[in-house]
């Protein structure tokens, strides 16, 4: 996958974007002059120190936040307000606790006014695909953290968005569940061809899943380096972990992050 610069073929185009937050005490620059192009169908991971502006970047792309300067284009259209042609997964599952797993997934359809029968079929497909079968009618508090996150993922995929934004979706999971979710997400991405922007703190996760890994500096976030992940498209988990390309990419990112956080 190559980096396409400034052409209409980009799925996401962030050009020279800065974000400043005006709080009572001081002005905080969260993102400084960041440019980034993501090709359709590409999987891009974003890593960086805590508080550097990763979530802010995703909110910019979704239109939940306006940049102080610069511009964001999504699927060829400039982002001016909240966009509906995306799927968003937050760090916390953010489920409605009075709705069952299935009805939480279907919230997406109800809000959009999608055809109910069709949405129901699609929800069942996703439930099957993410291994939630048998838990359709469970309430969120009856589900494990991993299952809740799967519900959130299904909800974000229900309307078949062309761009999927994920903000540390697996941060709260144990290592094993996290690996399973990684494998699942990889399969979903391969099957759907969705463009994915994934913010994560896990270096292994960022490399295993992505075509490219964007390493950000400490706040204000500046793109520190872009790592092209040189791995085959089809990725078996343990086989991938054992590959030298995987080892070199993770080592490079670890170095960069160490240098980035150890600045003072």
């Amino acid at each position, binding site marked *: 996958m190559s980096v396409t610069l400034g052409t209409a073929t980009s799925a996401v185009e962030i050009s020279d974007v800065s974000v400043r937050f005006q709080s009572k005490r001081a002005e905080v620059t969260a993102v400084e002059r960041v440019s980034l192009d993501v090709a359709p169908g590409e999987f891009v991971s974003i890593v960086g120190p805590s508080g550097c502006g990763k979530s802010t970047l995703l909110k910019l792309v979704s239109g939940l936040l306006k940049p102080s300067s610069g511009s964001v284009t999504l699927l060829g259209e400039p982002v001016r307000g909240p966009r509906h042609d995306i799927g968003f997964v937050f760090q916390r599952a953010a489920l*409605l606790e009075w709705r069952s797993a299935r009805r939480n997934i279907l919230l997406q359809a*109800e809000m*959009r006014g999608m055809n109910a029968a069709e949405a129901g079929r699609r929800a069942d497909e996703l439930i099957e695909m993410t291994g939630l079968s048998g838990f359709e009618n469970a309430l969120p508090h009856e589900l494990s953290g991993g299952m809740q996150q799967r519900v959130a993922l299904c909800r974000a995929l229900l309307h078949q968005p062309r761009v999927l934004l994920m903000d540390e979706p697996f941060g709260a999971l144990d290592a094993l569940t996290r690996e399973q979710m990684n494998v699942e997400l990889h399969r979903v991405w391969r099957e759907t061809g969705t463009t994915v922007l994934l913010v994560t703190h896990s270096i292994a996760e960022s490399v295993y899943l992505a075509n490219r890994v964007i390493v950000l500096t400490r706040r204000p976030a500046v793109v520190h380096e872009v790592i092209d992940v040189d791995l085959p498209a089809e990725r078996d988990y343990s086989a991938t972990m054992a590959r030298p390309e995987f080892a070199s990419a993770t080592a490079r990112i670890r170095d960069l992050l160490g240098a980035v956080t150890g600045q003072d």
Partner: protein
Amino acid sequence: MSTVPADRWRGVVERTWRPAALLAACLAIWHLVTATGMVEAYLVPSPAKTFGLLADKWSYLWGHTWVTTYETILGFVIAGLLGVLVAVAMVYSRTIESTAYPILLFAQVIPKIAIAPLFVVWLGFGFEPKVVVAVLMAFFPVVISTVTGLKSVDTEMLELAATMGGGPVKTFVKIRFPAALPHLFAGLKVAVTLAVTGAVVGEFVGSNEGLGYVILQANGNMDTPMLFAGLIVISVVGVVLFLLLDLAEKLMLPWHASRRGAAVTTLLAKG
């Protein structure tokens, strides 16, 4: 949760025996205090006499109970609807919030018993001034709890809703309002007990029916047994209305954490 009937009964017994025992103890003390002559009978009538009177004058009391209950429910329902409406307006508009808050607070701190006569002057001796006082008493907790509930909605949930593009009405109906229900119910439970007080206060000021009137009459006639009977009936009305709301909450919000917490504590108590 599905429990077998025998289990359910044991649950009911387990939950009720402590308050029942306390009530019995209070009655026993009341009986002892009056039976031993520690307190003169004209100051505190014996429980036997009070409950005897309750049974004898039941049809008389029933009529007045119904009047007070009617005023209470009417006041409560109006306060509930109005309260939720005002709360929604306040949450969605900064201007309305900043304008309404001082007025609301003022209306809350003003002693209702002091303005009740005014309502009698304006509205006469019918049920209307009592309902108005009940509304005034019950309104505030509904507004405060609903505002808190509507504001406590997860911001991420609202952001998610924005990306789903349902618009403000769908977001309110499907996300914001249901999320506010636990708070709303807490407010309604406080409100219904205050509505009873409001109705009785309204009756004190100018009335020829209702439990407030019964108490006022009994007081004038130094009829302490009737006074006690009236107090008991008023308390029962308040408790019954409260329990009805509690039941409605249980049925409507089985998912809510405070309900689940109850199940956890029973488990802990058993273990």
